[in-house]
Every structure is written in structure tokens, then in C-alpha cells.
């Protein structure tokens, strides 16, 4: 039985309408291309909307000594030097322009007394660097992009899910997608495709991420031949809510610590003194998350297994002005008034550093015509992401991916083709579970997947547990072949989950394989059986490829920084500090 489907032809197709996708769309459309953007949600609701704390850019509005060199230095150090340094360099240099451009497009950041964009301190940033709007910076960015996109010529397709990338003669040719509303299909052919589908934090149960974060684009690209890098690097944010159970994992922005919040254990001790006496609460995320975990393991946890976070000393007025969302969140969901009392926090999955391997300047993948930007791409953050760097990432590389795709279509003649039979075969595969009463329940499989990841590839890891986890994941992969989705095609979340689960299984396998191979501890990867950071592993990234349907893992050398950039690490302090002669 053959299915009717819509046909759309574009120059550049962008999959993902978060910050990265929308920024790419603006770049591509301003270059004159015919552009479409697809998103699984309504416009303006993508995961980016949840970002709270701020966007990192060395504007130097409050600390004039800041500059791109120091942002570069902080980012490389936090990433434990397995970052793609070329990405970090363009990132640090371009972030200020991308933020100012938002102001031009209507974003209204908090202001300094001089009337410039306000910047707040954040973990492991040498200077006060995060431009912000209270604790709703992501919303401001996505809203600004949403409004900007209406002024350029871009077709936006809402609530539509892409399920497969087509390849013609080695070059990307387009995608097939279904409308969530009624399950009808559409073929999108394009001369270039940008993946901007975000991360896969939903692979873990205790997570700050939204349902969208199932790594679709990374999985699609991987199956189409793109390489994945640094997959073992999954960030635990140190402060998620831990109580009540209904909100476990929900983010408590780092802004609370940025604004002066203190962490204490059940004995009232400011335990960060033991783990990072210099930076204390504002140490990097991997360090703070591990410290909380260690305190809980040592029996010094709070009643529900976390640490205390206390900001009451700042006074109610200040807290309500600077952290209104947090104040409300705790009042409404936990009956806790954070202006009056300390509250419990604990590590929650927050961000996936790894992802599609891309060229630092153009965001091109190894598949001709295929580009990737934002959380779905890997390389910028290395072994650990700095807070605020993701919002800057999606702006800088969103634009670069849009420009890269433009350049590609200008340099490559013709339009690749998609065979009718291939489209029909994919539609048939996607429809298969609909209306099936018997088969695996996708919700149950998702829960089991989360359990495997929590127990076998969580905050602390070791070889035997990872190996077991891999076996369990491979078993799950088999079972997932017969998922069912009772009901019709009309807005059927069970059916939607089928695709999410399949994509997460693919990526989780790569996460575990990478974690097994990296026999050391570095950034987010903490191996109890290999507790030290080892020089030889600082020289490699683990790269995964799909070969005949199997995930294969290789190593790839970390590119060596130029002599000029290396010098930035030899000044005895962060560049901005060393140059201004101030003490760190």
C-alpha cells in the first residue's frame, strides 16, 4: 500500500527550531537561499526556552579586563583540553557580536548602572561574563529569534518529526517527516541540510531536559554516515531539585550560586572548601557535581540525598528580583520559600557535550551537504561544558552552519534526488507500530533505558558496570524492534515515543562504548577504576561510526593548539588577569 505524502523542495533545510536552528535559518535566508525549518514543538517552545542563567560572551561590560583570550582559556581548561581548539577560538572571538546582534533584534538584557548589558559571574568563568535576563535568558533568546525569523523569508514547519536522512551519491538529499498533529507525511528535499536538534538528556531519568531531548538529529546523521565524537561526556549539573519526587531533576540555575548561594552538607560544613578552595561554589560543574555526590556517599547528605543550597543572606528583595523564576518554582512546586530557608539540591543530567563531529569553521560533517550546530554537535565543550557557553554556542555556530550550508550550495551544482521507493519504505517502517496492540510499550522501554544509563553509565563509572550496561543496551535494542503504539495516527504520544526511544538507544550505545574505551577520569567522565586524568588520553577523542548497522569506535588525535594559543596557558594566570596585573 503506498502512502500519499507532501513534497517540499528547498535550498537549505534546517532540522530543529531551537536557538541553533533559528540562527542558522536567519543566516541562510539572509544569504538569499530558500529555507525551511522543522521542529518537533511549536515555534518558541524548543528546549532553548528553558535556559536560565545566561549567555557567555566577553563583552567586558562589568570586568573590562575580560576578552576573547580569557574566554578561550576558561573554555579549554574546563573541557580538559580535548576540545576542538579551533572551534573554541572562533567561539570566544565571535560570541560578543552574536549577543549584541540579539540586542539589535529586540532582546532586552538586564542593564549595568552605565546602561550596558549586565553580566553575572558563573562557575569557572574567570570574569563576570554571562549576559542575562533575570533567570529566563533562554526564553529571551528564543523569543528574539522567533521574532527575527518572521522578518526574513523562512518557512517554519511546527510539530513535525524528521525520521530519516536520505543520501544520494554520498551527498545528503533530504528527509522525510511526519506531522504530529495527524500523522501525515512530507518529503523535504534540499541541497544542504543543517541538523540542530539539541541533546539527549532524556536518556537519563533524573534530568533537567524536556521531552524533545532525545537526540533525533544526531541519531539520524549517525545512521546516514556522520561521525559522532566525545559521546562519553555527559554533563551532570550539580544542582537539580531533589524533592518532592515529582520535580526531581528540575534545574536550579547556577545563577543561584552566581548570585552568592552557598552549598553546605548535613553537618553545616561548606564542603567545597575541601574540593576546590579557590573557586568554591563556583568551581566547574563536574567538580561541584562530584563533590555533592561524594558528600552524600559519605553520609553527609540532606534528608532526600542532596546538599543544602542557601541564598537567604541576600535578602528577599534581591532574590526576588534576580531569581524570580527560582523563587516561584520552589514556592509552587516544593512549598519552599528560598528567601527564608535553605533548600535541597543534587546532581541532574543537563547537557550532552558529545555529538556530531563537525568542521570548526563551517560546521560541515563528513557527509557532503550535511551540517550540524548546537547541542547536537560535539567538539566545542570537550570533557565538560561551562555554564553559559551553550547559549553562545548555538548563536555562534548556528550562524556558521547557516553560512556553511550557503557556501556549500553555491559551490555544488544540482539537486540530489530521493528515490520514491526509499520514501515509501521509510513511511512503511514509521507507520508499522501504529495501532498495534501487542508489542513492547515504548514508555516502559524508555524507563528501562533510563535505568540502564543511571546504573551503568551515571556520574561514577567503572569497567565491569559499563560492560554490563552495554549488554543490557544491546538487549534493549533487540526488544525495541517490536514496539507498538495502540491508537490512531492523530497526535499519538505513544507512537511519537517509539522514534525517540530508538534514537536514544543508538546514542546510548555510543555513550557506553566511549566510556568503556576512555580508561581514565577527565571532566564529566569519572571512572572509579581509573581515577586519574592520563596524559595519553588527553591526546585523543573517541569517534564512532555506523558500519553495516553496527556502532564502531575509533580514536582520533586532538589537534594541537598553535604556539600563540599555547602561550595563553603559560602566563601563570588567566590571560585577562595576567595582563591587568591583578591577582587571581
Amino acid at each position: 500500500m503506498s502512502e500519499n505524502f507532501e513534497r517540499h523542495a528547498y535550498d537549505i533545510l534546517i532540522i530543529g527550531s531551537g536557538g541553533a536552528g533559528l540562527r542558522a535559518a536567519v543566516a541562510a535566508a539572509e544569504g538569499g537561499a530558500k529555507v525551511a525549518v522543522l521542529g518537533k514543538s511549536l515555534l518558541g517552545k524548543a528546549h532553548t526556552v528553558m535556559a536560565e542563567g545566561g549567555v557567555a560572551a566577553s563583552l567586558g561590560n562589568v570586568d573590562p579586563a575580560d576578552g576573547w583570550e580569557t574566554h578561550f582559556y576558561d573554555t579549554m581548561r574546563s573541557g580538559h583540553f580535548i576540545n576542538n581548539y579551533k572551534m573554541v577560538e572562533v567561539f570566544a572571538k565571535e560570541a560578543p557580536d552574536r549577543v549584541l546582534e540579539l540586542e539589535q533584534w529586540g532582546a532586552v538584557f538586564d542593564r549595568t548602572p552605565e546602561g550596558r548589558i549586565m553580566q553575572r559571574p558563573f562557575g569557572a568563568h574567570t570574569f563576570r561574563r554571562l549576559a542575562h535576563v533575570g533567570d529566563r535568558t533562554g526564553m529571551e533568546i528564543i523569543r528574539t529569534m522567533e521574532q527575527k525569523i518572521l522578518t526574513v523569508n523562512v518557512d517554519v514547519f511546527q510539530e513535525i518529526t524528521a525520521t530519516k536522512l536520505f543520501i544520494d551519491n554520498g551527498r545528503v538529499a533530504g528527509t522525510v517527516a511526519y506531522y504530529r498533529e495527524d500523522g501525515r507525511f512530507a518529503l523535504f528535499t534540499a541541497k544542504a541540510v543543517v541538523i540542530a536538534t539539541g541533546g539527549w538528556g532524556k536518556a537519563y531519568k533524573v534530568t533537567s531536559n524536556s521531552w524533545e531531548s532525545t537526540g533525533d538529529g544526531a541519531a539520524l546523521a549517525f545512521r546516514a554516515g556522520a561521525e559522532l565524537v566525545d559521546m562519553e561526556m555527559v554533563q551532570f549539573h550539580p544542582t537539580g531539585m531533589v524533592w518532592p519526587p515529582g520535580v526531581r531533576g528540575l534545574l536550579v540555575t547556577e545563577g543561584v550560586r552566581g548570585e552568592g548561594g552557598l552549598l553546605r552538607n548535613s553537618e553545616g560544613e561548606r564542603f567545597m572548601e575541601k574540593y576546590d578552595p579557590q573557586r568554591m561554589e563556583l568551581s566547574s560543574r563536574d567538580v561541584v557535581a562530584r563533590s555533592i555526590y561524594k558528600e552524600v556517599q559519605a553520609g553527609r547528605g540532606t534528608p532526600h540525598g542532596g546538599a543544602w543550597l542557601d541564598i537567604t543572606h541576600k535578602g528577599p528583595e534581591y532574590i526576588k528580583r534576580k531569581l524570580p523564576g527560582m523563587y516561584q518554582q520552589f514556592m509552587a512546586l516544593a512549598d519552599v520559600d528560598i528567601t527564608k530557608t535553605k533548600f535541597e539540591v543534587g546532581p541532574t543530567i543537563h547537557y550532552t557535550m558529545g555529538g556530531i563531529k563537525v568542521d570548526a569553521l563551517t560546521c560541515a560533517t563528513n557527509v557532503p551537504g550535511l551540517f550540524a550546530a548546537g547541542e547536537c554537535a560535539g567538539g566545542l565543550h570537550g570533557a565538560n561544558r561551562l555554564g553559559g557557553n551553550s547559549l553562545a554556542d548555538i548563536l555562534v555556530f548556528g550562524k556558521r552552519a547557516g553560512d556553511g550550508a550557503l557556501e556549500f550550495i553555491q559551490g555544488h551544482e544540482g539537486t540530489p534526488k530521493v528515490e520514491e521507493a526509499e520514501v515509501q519504505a521509510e513511511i512503511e517502517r514509521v507507520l508499522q507500530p501504529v495501532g498495534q496492540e501487542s508489542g513492547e510499550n515504548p514508555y516502559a522501554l524508555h524507563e528501562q533505558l533510563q535505568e540502564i544509563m543511571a546504573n551503568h553509565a551515571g556520574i561514577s563509572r567503572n569497567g565491569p558496570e559499563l560492560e554490563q550496561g552495554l549488554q543490557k543496551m544491546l538487549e534493549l535494542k533487540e526488544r525495541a524492534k517490536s514496539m507498538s503504539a495502540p491508537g490512531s495516527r492523530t497526535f499519538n504520544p505513544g507512537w511519537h515515543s517509539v522514534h525517540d526511544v530508538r534514537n536514544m538507544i543508538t546514542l546510548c550505545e555510543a555513550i557506553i562504548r566511549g566510556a568503556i574505551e576512555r580508561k581514565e577520569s577527565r571532566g564529566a567522565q569519572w571512572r572509579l577504576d581509573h581515577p586519574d586524568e592520563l596524559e595519553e588520553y588527553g591526546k585523543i577523542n573517541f569517534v564512532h561510526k555506523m558500519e553495516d548497522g553496527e556502532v564502531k569506535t575509533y580514536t582520533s588525535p586532538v589537534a594541537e593548539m598553535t604556539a600563540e594559543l599555547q602561550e595563553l596557558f603559560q602566563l601563570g594566570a588567566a590571560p585577562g588577569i595576567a595582563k591587568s596585573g591583578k591577582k587571581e
Partner: protein
Amino acid sequence: MAEEITLSVFRGDRSGGREQEYKIPAVPGMVVLDALHYIQAHQAPDLAVRWNCKAAHCGSCSAEINGSAKLLCKTRVDDYTDEVIHVRPMHTFPVIKDLVTDVSWNYEKLRQIPAFQPAIKAPFTLHQRDVDRIQEFRKCIECFLCQNICHVLRDHSAKDAYWGPRMMIRMAELQMHPLDTADRIDLLKGSAGIGYCNITKCCTVVCPQGINITDNGIIPLKERVADKYFDPLGGLVRKMHK
């Protein structure tokens, strides 16, 4: 808190439907969205509901709970002790399925609002006191609960005549931006239909972001319209001081 809670959820599509009861175990701190997710995972996998953030940031999960327009992720089930919790889709927008409605009309209207047109190039010098007012409006999460509740749209289906409170505060935010140069006053008076708002403040009451839609947004806009149309000199003075 009861061990078991009962939800009565609208199930249906464009062709109609009715409420169906589900009993689920209560968990401390559970919000209505959690309860619906439990139903999805264990009883009705195809139950349709929109959500993203579960933190009142994205404005996806708007619905009517026991007759009040609310966010599902911000409404605790223990607010309703010993009561059946009735969950229905927003009334003002056509149902797609279950709790999911077709809100595309709002996006069409957003598209018709002239964008921000700054007089100068960033970086801007703007003081916090100059932006406090518009930052309040920019807190909007586009949940469209205000659109749902505004009687002009809800009871009179006057969507052709009046664009509703969400669009009013979007325009307020732009009109009151100290550096914006575009003029939306004619639009407000004309096809956006600000005159239809009779200041009942129902929109302000339901706004989950606590935006003072009527007092801070709509009324000042109405004054600007009045100034321009009925007091040309005042309008001119105001424009110079924008």
C-alpha cells in the same frame, strides 16, 4: 493526601469526545502533568497533551483544570483534595486531540505585528529603569491562556475583530521600547481592535507569569490610541518623548 487520585480527562478530537475517568497513585509533589504522564505510560498511551519544560517556562501545557485556565505543569494535584480533577482542553481554540488544541491563529497574528525597528545600532545605552516596564511584558511564555479566557475571543468568537491580550502586550512591549521607531497605533485601533477590550482584567488574573496585562499594557496602549486620534497635539508631544 489521598493515596489514589481520580482524574477525568477529555478524550476526543475534532469530531467530538467526552471525559474519561482514570485512577492513579498519588506521589508527593505531583503536578497534573505528572498525573497525565502516568496515565500515558500505564493506561492510555495515546493520550495527547503538549508539554516541554515542566517548569512553567515554555507555555505548552495550557488547559482547563476544574474550569480554570492553568498550566498543567504548575498545578499541584494536592490542590484538589477529595475532588475529581477535571482536565479539559482550552475552550477558545479548536481541539486537535484530547488536550491538544490548534493555536495556529496566534502565530498568524504574531506574524502581522511590525517587528522591532531600532533607531540606532547596538550596543545600546539603556538603563534598567527604562527597560523594567518592557521586561515585564517580555516574560510572556506564549501559553495563550489569556487568549483563551478573554471573553471577546471566548464567548463572542470575535477573532477577526480583536487580536487578544497576548498580542496587546507584544505590541505594548514594542511601542514602549525606548529605541523603537515603528508605529503600531493605527494597527491597534484598526484591525487589531483594541477598542473591543473592555478592561475586565480576566486575562491578567490567569496569566501564569503575573504580567499586569491590563493595567500596564492595554490601558497605556488605549491612551496612546486616544491621544493620537482624539488629541493630536498630545500625541505629538508623547511621540517626541518616547
